């Protein structure tokens, strides 16, 4: 799934819907945050819940790429390890 450039509260309901649809996906879900330009706490919170829930269910999530904006936002919120962003290319 490719994240949109704007990941903010305004589109959080859409993002949640999209993530919910992927929750039960059997194969590894690959998230691509390379385009993310602006992201806020609401969107990161959803991603954190998604990554955690997938992991709790024993399903994998990986990052194809993460933009600088997204990476620094996640770091600021102390979410880097929750989202396992560290291994993702910038």
């Amino acid at each position, binding site marked *: 799934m490719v994240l949109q450039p704007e990941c903010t509260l305004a589109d959080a309901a859409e993002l949640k819907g999209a993530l919910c649809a992927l929750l039960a996906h059997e194969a590894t879900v690959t998230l691509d945050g390379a385009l993310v330009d602006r992201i806020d706490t609401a969107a990161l919170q959803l991603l954190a819940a998604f990554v955690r829930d997938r992991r709790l269910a024993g399903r994998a999530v990986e990052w194809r790429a993460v933009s600088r904006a997204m990476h620094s936002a996640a770091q600021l919120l*102390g979410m880097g390890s929750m989202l396992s962003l560290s291994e993702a290319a910038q």
Partner: protein
Amino acid sequence: MTVDLTQFHDAFFEESFEALDAMEAALLKLDIGAPDPELINTIFRVAHSIKGGSATFGFTDIASFTHSLETLLDELRSGAMAVTDQVSDVLLKSVDVMRAMLRAVQAKQPIDAQRVSDLQFDLEVIIARKHAAPPPSAAPQAAAPQAAAARWQVRFRPYRELLARGNDPLRMLRELGELGEMQVRIDAQSLPALTDLQPQDCHLAWTIELSGEVPEEAIRQVFDWAEGDCELQIGRTAEAAAEPQVEQPPAPATPAATEPAPSETVAAQADSQAEGPPEAPAATGAAASAPRAEPASKPEAAVSAHGDSGSIRVSVDKIDELMNTVGELVITQAMLSQLGGQFDGPQAEQLRAGLAQLERNMRELQESVMRVRMLPISFVFSRFPRMVRDLAHRLGKQIELKLTGEQTELDKTVLEKIGDPLVHLVRNCIDHGIEPPEKRVAAGKPAAGTVHLDATHRGGNIAVEVSDDGGGLDKERILAKARARGLIGANDTLSDAEIYELIFLPGFSTAEKTTDVSGRGVGMDVVRRNVKSLGGKIEVSSEAGRGSRFTITLPLTLAIVDGQSVAVGSETYIVPLISIVESMQLKNGNVSRLSGQAEVFSFRGDYLPIIRLHEVFGVEPHTRALHEGLVVVAEGDGRRVGLFVDDLLGQQQVVIKSLETNYGHIEGISGATILGDGSVALILDVPGLIRVASMRIAA
């Protein structure tokens, strides 16, 4: 113990919250140096009964904390220790911590253990120091923050609504990161499963360690915008004491200080001592013993308190259900009345008499049910003594707070939402309104400024006034700022009222430098938005050197509104009476067109724009000729406009229904109602409508 204690939990929480309010009030009345023993007793009893109750119910964290608190209070009670400013501050903080703990336990959320142990540590240091250095007067200094080799620990726990109010923790942490080197720890414990997560709710919390030479004000300023939307704790932790729960507290001079923080052993002891004597632990010696449980006394206290006031606790849901049903009944009754008017024949008169009786009864029923939801505004006012005290302290000002009309009642929903706007206003008065003592004395005023909060009923509305006897709004500075920001033209002349209106514009701030109290112009526009969302309005008046006065007018309830029905084509709309100035017919002569575009008409010496409702709402009107229809002069956000409609239909109280339940928000519409014939009429949101219309003209 085989009795199921959970049935008493609710009563315990309610009682404890009330008791804490009483404790806080008593603390605020406490004179430093010469405390009234009766007040200390009151405070002691609160701590004691909460300790007993929490031990009984197995809330060990609370029991352990209140135990330390009780030890300190006992010292005060026996006169072994003096009440100092510092002690009083710690006690007030304890009230906050106990409230937070009770709330957490009530909501089955984890307790903020760090915050609790920090304060418990403070309490124990005070007690310990007393034992180490008997002269009580020597105490205050020692607990002051240790030297510069310290760092800040910021605990930031947003309330759920934080995001929805437009605050983003990300922005705050980014600003914080600019102040110094920062380590962020996230607490995502209460993050629900993705499917249950409401995207606009914030379920995260953070602990931030910040090192560097950073003034506390700078940190507070970062969170200014979130004030009221989060729990915020800023503490200076010496490097060594950064992890107090691991480290042994220094100087444990009494057994109390070595008692482990929250632990299972306390619970066990509490259980084994359940039959123990219910009296208070005597003086200092008993401090080391574990909290004693009083299984019998707590439920009894709950019963007697309920009996005293002759009231019962009813859940709000039940009342809301009742309100809804009554709302339905009112609609059905209106439908019947309308039908009844169409009948002829021998029994028609009787039918109508019966219907009229029904209508009267309905109105009484509706009012009675509405009254059930009404609470005195003192519930909101009661938070101000503490707030004003703390603020005045911080700003070095002397403030006297006057509260009147505390018994004025209003709907619980309105009550809950009016708190924040009032906090903003009061804070603003103290920060910007009241001058520093020197300046006041120089101006021939008493050194202590007065902030006055007053509530009164006016018709179907409640008016809440916040006034101060400070310097008043500075017109020149407001004008200068508005010009600098291009909000008004360089040569525009504005009336006083128009100048004061400028402060409600988003981002407007007149403080010469931002302060950590009212911040960067956050406030007035937010205040107005909040008040407006409650269907109310806010007005300001001011006199240079004499002070300013903000008046908030609100409907008593959000459930019904007094409205004027108007017809536009085949549609009926409801205009809230609170927005209407008057209705009139236009003559051909007094309408003109500005630059061939916007239509305006003259009203009491002003030119007001005309909003053609049929155009804004896209309906086919009976007439487009202005002199054939009517104009309703309406006011919103301090602006007046003429709403052009076909006809006026009648005034009535209508039950407000949400459009957002099944559809969504519509600009210019605040809700809908059901008319007597069962059809739906939309209720106009006049300020929103003015915004929509002015965008149309601008476009």
